[in-house]
C-alpha cells in the first residue's frame, strides 16, 4: 500500500534524561514534497527524522502520517524507506540481495522481485554491480545501493539522513542533482536531513531550520534566504553568511560606525539593533560607509572581500572585474530592502 506521504508533527518533545533534544517541534509536509531538515549538528534534525521513521519514540507529542496517528506504531508498519548516513547495507548480502531484501520481507513473489531489483539498480546506475558485496564497492556505489534499496519498494515516505556527507565533493554535487531528479520522477515525499545549507537550498521544496532543539523557521529556501527569522538563521544560511553588525536604530535609519543607512522600517524612536547585510547585497558607491579592504578571496567569477569598517569585520561579495586592491579604502552601501534588522535581546527579526 502506498499512501500519500503527508506528514504532521504535533508538539514533539524528546528528552534524553535531563537534556531536551527536541523542545516541541511542529511542522507539516505536503504529499510529494522534498522537505529538508536543516541545522547544525546537535540541533535535533536527525532525532526528528528517527522519530518520524519510528526508530525512536518521542517523549511527548504526536506524529501523523496521512492523517493517521502513528506515534506508537513500530517502524516496520509505517511504510517508510530510509537511506542512512552510514548506508547500513547488509554486509553479508550482495547488492542484488540487499535491494531485494525489503521486497522479500513484503513477501513478494520471486518472479516480481528480480525485475524490480534490476529496475531500481538501473535507476541509480549500479545494475552492473549486482553480484558484488558492499565491501567491494566504493563509497559512492554503496550510497547508490542504499538508495536503490530505499526506492525499490515504493514506500510512501522516503527519508534521507545526510546521504551525501560521506562522498567526496565532486561526487556529492553529481549525486545531489541525480537525487533531485530521482525524487521528481518517483513523485514520492522525501524528508532530507542535512547540515549543509547548500544541499538544503538546492534540493528542497521547503525546509525547516533547526536550532538547539527547535524549529526556527519553515519555508521555501528562497523565503528563508530572503527573510531569515532570527539572528541564528541569518548567521547560518548563505555562503558566506549574512554580516551581523550591532548598530543603533533611529527613526527609520540604522547608524553603523557613524554612517546612516536607510531601512524599510519607519517606526519612530531609538533602540539597539543587530543589522544583517548579505555579502552579495552590498554595493560600492560614493558617499557610503567607508571601509578598508583587508583580504580578498578570489573565487574566479566572484570575490569575497573582508572589509574593516571602523573595527567591525564585514564581508562583501563582488563580481569579477570590479575588484579593488587589498589595502584600498572603498565606500559601501545597501538598498533599504536589503537591510535586515534583528532584536539583540530576543534575537528575532524586527
Amino acid at each position, binding site marked *: 500500500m502506498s499512501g500519500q506521504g503527508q506528514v504532521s508533527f504535533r508538539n514533539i518533545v524528546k528528552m534524553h534524561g535531563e537534556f531536551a533534544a527536541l523542545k516541541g517541534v511542529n511542522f507539516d509536509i505536503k504529499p510529494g514534497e522534498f522537505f529538508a531538515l536543516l541545522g547544525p549538528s546537535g540541533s535535533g534534525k536527525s532525532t526528528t527524522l528517527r522519530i518520524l*521513521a*519510528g*526508530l525512536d519514540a518521542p517523549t511527548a507529542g504526536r506524529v501523523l502520517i496521512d492523517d493517521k496517528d502513528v506515534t506508537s506504531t*513500530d*517502524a*516496520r*508498519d*509505517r511504510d*517508510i*524507506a*530510509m537511506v*542512512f548516513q*552510514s548506508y*547500513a*547495507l*547488509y*554486509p*553479508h548480502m550482495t547488492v542484488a540481495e540487499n535491494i531485494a*531484501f*525489503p521486497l522479500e*520481507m*513484503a513477501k513478494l513473489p520471486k518472479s516480481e522481485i528480480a525485475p524490480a531489483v534490476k529496475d531500481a539498480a538501473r535507476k541509480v546506475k549500479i545494475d552492473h554491480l549486482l553480484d558484488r558485496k558492499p565491501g567491494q564497492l566504493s563509497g559512492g556505489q554503496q550510497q547508490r545501493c542504499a538508495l536503490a*534499496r530505499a526506492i525499490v*519498494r515504493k514506500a510512501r515516505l522516503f527519508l534521507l539522513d545526510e546521504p551525501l556527507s560521506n562522498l567526496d565533493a565532486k561526487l556529492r554535487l553529481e549525486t545531489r542533482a541525480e537525487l533531485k531528479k530521482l525524487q521528481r520522477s518517483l513523485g514520492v515525499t522525501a524528508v532530507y536531513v542535512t547540515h549543509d545549507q547548500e544541499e538544503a537550498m538546492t534540493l528542497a521544496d521547503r525546509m525547516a531550520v533547526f536550532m538547539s532543539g527547535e524549529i526556527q523557521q519553515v519555508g521555501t529556501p528562497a523565503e528563508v534566504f530572503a527573510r531569515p527569522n532570527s539572528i541564528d538563521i541569518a548567521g547560518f544560511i548563505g555562503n558566506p553568511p549574512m554580516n551581523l553588525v550591532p548598530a543603533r536604530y533611529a527613526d527609520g535609519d540604522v547608524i553603523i560606525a557613524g554612517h546612516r543607512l536607510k531601512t524599510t522600517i519607519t517606526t519612530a524612536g531609538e533602540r539597539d539593533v543587530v543589522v544583517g547585510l548579505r555579502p552579495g547585497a552590498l554595493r560600492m558607491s560614493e558617499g557610503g560607509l567607508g571601509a578598508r579592504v583587508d583580504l580578498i578571496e578570489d573565487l574566479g567569477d566572484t570575490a569575497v572581500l573582508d572589509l574593516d569598517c571602523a573595527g567591525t569585520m564585514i564581508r562583501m561579495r563582488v563580481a569579477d572585474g570590479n575588484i579593488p586592491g587589498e589595502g584600498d579604502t572603498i565606500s559601501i552601501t545597501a538598498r533599504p530592502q536589503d537591510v535586515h534588522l534583528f532584536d539583540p535581546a530576543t534575537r528575532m527579526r524586527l
Partner: protein
Amino acid sequence: MATTAVTSADIASEAPRSDFGRILAQREHRFAAALLAPAFLALLATTTFPLLFLVYTSAFRMDLAMPFTNGFVGFENYQVLLSDERFWTSLLVSLVYTGSTVALQVIIGLALALLVMDMKRGQGWFRVIAILPVVLSPAVVGMIWRTFMLAPEFGIVDFLAINAGLGSKNWLGDPTLAMVSVIAIHTWQWTPFAFMVLLASLASLPEDIYEAARLDRASAWQRFRRITLPLLRPAIVMVIIMRTMVALTAFAAIFTVTAGGPGTATEILNLYAYRKSFTELSIGYGSALAVALLIVTIIISGILFAMRRAK
C-alpha cells in the same frame, strides 16, 4: 680473480645493489631463524616427538603384564582395533558426546548472548558469573557434580527431581542417565566460552543495519535468521571447531564422574585408550587407539575448516 676485471661503472650500477639486498635478506632470515629456534625446538621435543613415539609404539606389542610377548607387530594392533567392538562403541560414544555437547553449547551460548545483549543493566555481573565454570579444572567440575549435584537424595539435581515428582534417580548408575549427565556437565562447564565469544561477536554488529531491517519490515525472527545468524556465522563456526577438538579429547570430567561407566556407557575413545594403556597395561594397543583418535580428530577438524572456508 675475475673481479679484478670489473670496472668502476659496473660496481656503481646493478651488482652492489642486488648483492646488498640479498645479504640483508639473508641476515634477516638468519636472525628470524635464531629467534624462532628455541620455541621451535621446545615444541618439537614436547609435541612432535611424543606424537611420533606414539605412532612408533603403536606398531609394537607392549604388554606390561606379559612382557615376554613384547615385540614388533607392524599393523597388527590396527587390525585388532578394526574388529574390536569396544573400539567402535567408544568411538560412537565419543561422537555422540562431542556432537551433543557442541550443539548444546552453541545453542545455549547463543541464546544467552542474545538475552544478555538486550539487558540494560547487569551485563558485567552476568559475564563475571558466567565465566566462573570455565576457570575451574574439569576434574574439580567432575567432583562437584558427582557429589553436590548428582549424588542420590542429597545432590541438588536429585533433590529437584524428587521434588518435581520424578523420584530419586541413579544419575550415574543408569547407562542413559550417566551419558546425559556427562553431556550436561561438559555443557555446563563450557557453554560460557561459547557465550562469551558470541556475545563479543554480537556486540560488534552494527546497530544501524538492524534499524534498516526494521524499516525494511523484517520481523524479529527474520532479523535473527537473515542478519544476525549469517553475520555470526564465522564466530559460530570458530566456536564449533574449538569446542569439537576439545570435546573429542575430553577426559578429566568424565574420568572423575563415571570413569567411563557404568560398564562402558560413557567410555569415550580417549578413556578407552587410557584404560587399555594404564589399567590393562597394554601400551602398544592403547597407543593404536590414541592414534585412531588423532586421525578421527584430524578428519573432523578438516571437515569443519573446509566448511569455514566454504563461504
